């Protein structure tokens, strides 16, 4: 997919974050455009979660600039991020089992009609939202406890859309899902892109990344280790960037030999 907007909705410029003696992020750059799916990949401890948490306002950044629509902003609390239009979907524990789908979608921001919860409008909007996203669940009035893992995940993602965000962060949305459910979630990610939202997708699953992402941003040891357009990049190149496999004597030597051969 071609970038549809010149100015990225969200841009991180030289962002650094320290926890005590640990330099979790060093000079990290990241751009997310409207209608773009950016996959954020990296090994455990590469700084993906920290990076996402700085965007979501959980950890304020130490150095660098966060730009929103080209203008520098400060994100110090989750509330700031939500106010800008960042919605975060966590891997687990995001839904109340005892409430129904409508109740969960609107949890914390119920529609009111003269001070009373407006169940009718909420149910109507919920059904419209779910059907435009082609989400199939048995009924919007059954408790979340009755839904499968994949259905819960799509409800959690749909929940993020209620607040009309511009950027949606998905933290390993397919981690615990089966084949069919994974496909459903990936479909949903594509529909988010069609709605012109910027999506940051954290995943360890290269097949998912190749399937939906436009750009792959690789983090390694808290630093950028390449940003690739998915179309022109092979599986192996991404893996190499994640593991740092290119950064050793053998590959450097191989690189020299190919350039010499080219001459």
């Amino acid at each position, binding site marked *: 997919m071609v970038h549809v907007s010149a100015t990225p909705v969200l841009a991180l410029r030289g962002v650094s974050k320290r926890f005590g003696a640990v330099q979790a992020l060093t000079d990290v750059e990241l751009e997310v455009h409207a209608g773009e799916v950016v996959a954020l990949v990296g090994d455990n401890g590469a700084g993906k979660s920290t990076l996402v948490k700085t965007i979501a306002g959980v950890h304020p950044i130490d150095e660098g600039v966060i730009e929103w629509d080209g203008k520098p902003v400060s994100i110090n609390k989750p509330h700031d991020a939500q106010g800008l239009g960042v919605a975060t979907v*966590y891997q687990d*524990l995001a839904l109340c089992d005892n409430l*129904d789908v409508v109740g969960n979608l609107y*949890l914390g*921001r119920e529609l009111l009609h003269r001070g009373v919860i407006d169940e009718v*409008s909420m149910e109507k909007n919920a059904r419209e939202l779910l059907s435009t996203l*082609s989400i199939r669940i048995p009924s*919007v*009035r059954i408790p979340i406890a*009755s839904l499968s893992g994949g259905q819960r995940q799509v409800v959690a993602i749909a929940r993020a859309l209620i607040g009309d965000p511009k950027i949606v962060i998905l933290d390993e949305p397919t981690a615990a899902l089966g084949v069919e459910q994974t496909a459903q979630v990936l479909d949903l990610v594509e529909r988010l892109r069609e709605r012109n939202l910027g999506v940051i997708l954290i995943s360890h699953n290269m097949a998912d990344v190749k399937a939906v992402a436009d750009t792959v941003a690789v983090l390694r040891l808290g630093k950028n280790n390449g940003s690739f357009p998915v179309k022109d990049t092979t599986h192996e190149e991404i893996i190499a960037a994640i593991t740092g496999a290119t950064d050793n004597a053998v590959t450097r030597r191989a690189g020299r030999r190919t350039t010499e051969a080219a001459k």
Partner: protein
Amino acid sequence: MSDTSKTVKKDPELQETVAPSDDPTAAPVSIVDPRLLVREEGLKGYWTEFKRKVKGGEIGSLPVVLGLIVIWTIFQLQNDRFLSADNLSNISYYMSATGMLAIGLVFVLLLGEIDLSVGSVSGLASTLFAVYVVNHGWNVWLALSLTLVIGALIGALQGWFFAKIGVPAFVVTLAGFLGWNGLMLWLLGASGTINIPDEGPVHLFGQSSFFMDQAVIGAYLLAGLGVASMLFGSLIEQRRRRAAGVPFRPTSEIALRVGLLAVAAFVSAYVLNQSAGVTNSLVIFLAALVIVDFVLRRTPYGRKVFAVGGGIEAARRAGINVPMIRITVFALSGFFAAVGGMFFAGQTQSATLNAGGGNTLMLAIAAAVIGGTSLFGGRGTVWSALLGMLVIQSIQTGLDLLNMNTSIQYMITGAVLLGAVVIDSVSRKSQKAAGRA
């Protein structure tokens, strides 16, 4: 609410067929999953669905109704005065005091917590009121207001220890159970009992204070009011849902529900009129139930209480102030305990050493749980306080009628509480197996 989806197949024109808005040529997508079981037409449909729900552990108020029938039959066989109008009127009067405690406990149980101090707080409330009015000569209504505020503050204090300091609610309220009882004994001092003049709130909560001064029309007026508001409420809801294009209850189902309520309400009104009439205590208890039910089901605050009971982390992430909800819920529990204490004072027109002691706490917890509010949090309605109290008070009054010793009463109360908790645990297990918990 949960059964609105069942109506979808019955009204084919309502079948949700929404084309994706961005692509009008695409095939319509039905939002209804084909795997969802849909109730069949007619009475058979209700019956099969009922059986399925029971198997899935969604028993609702079924055990209460069955239990009530069994209890009433047994006591009626033992003593034919049990189902007399006078005795039923007694049950309706005496259940309101403990019922108030049970209302507060429903809030706490919805969070999945427990408040063991409600009995002691109710005893302390009656003593405080007596001290203000008798020893200090204060205005009764001022004394009542102050007593209720202190009840709420006591609850809030316990809630603060639980929510902010992180002491388990069980331990905080166990300390309260002892501490507030000690304070009450200290206030009563050597005299032991303070008699309260039969006026103001104490008269209002007494057994000789009746709605509309025993006018026969009063009971029917209340019954009519209840039935009419349910009927109009359901019809307005149906119209709004129909206008919005979401599933609604069919008129036949509304008629059935309203009809059942009408029978229950008017039979109760008739029976109470056969005796002395409707006591004001019962009217206040019922009004409190209606208000609290509304708060829990229809306001953002009630939704937050359910959310915290269903998943603390999810509630926190949704921006809900979890400590605030916990503190206010315990404050409500303390408030209703104080109200219950005033009702006890109205029963005896005195503050005594054993007010709120004995098995008061156990009865209130048993009532809430028997009525169907889960001990595990997140599930229940405040009507369980009414249903549970009917069972509990029937047992109490029945045992009194049979001149049973307190020892026997304690044993039976203990067994009933255990039975209620067992039913709750078993139904939760089958709900889990059926994917509903």
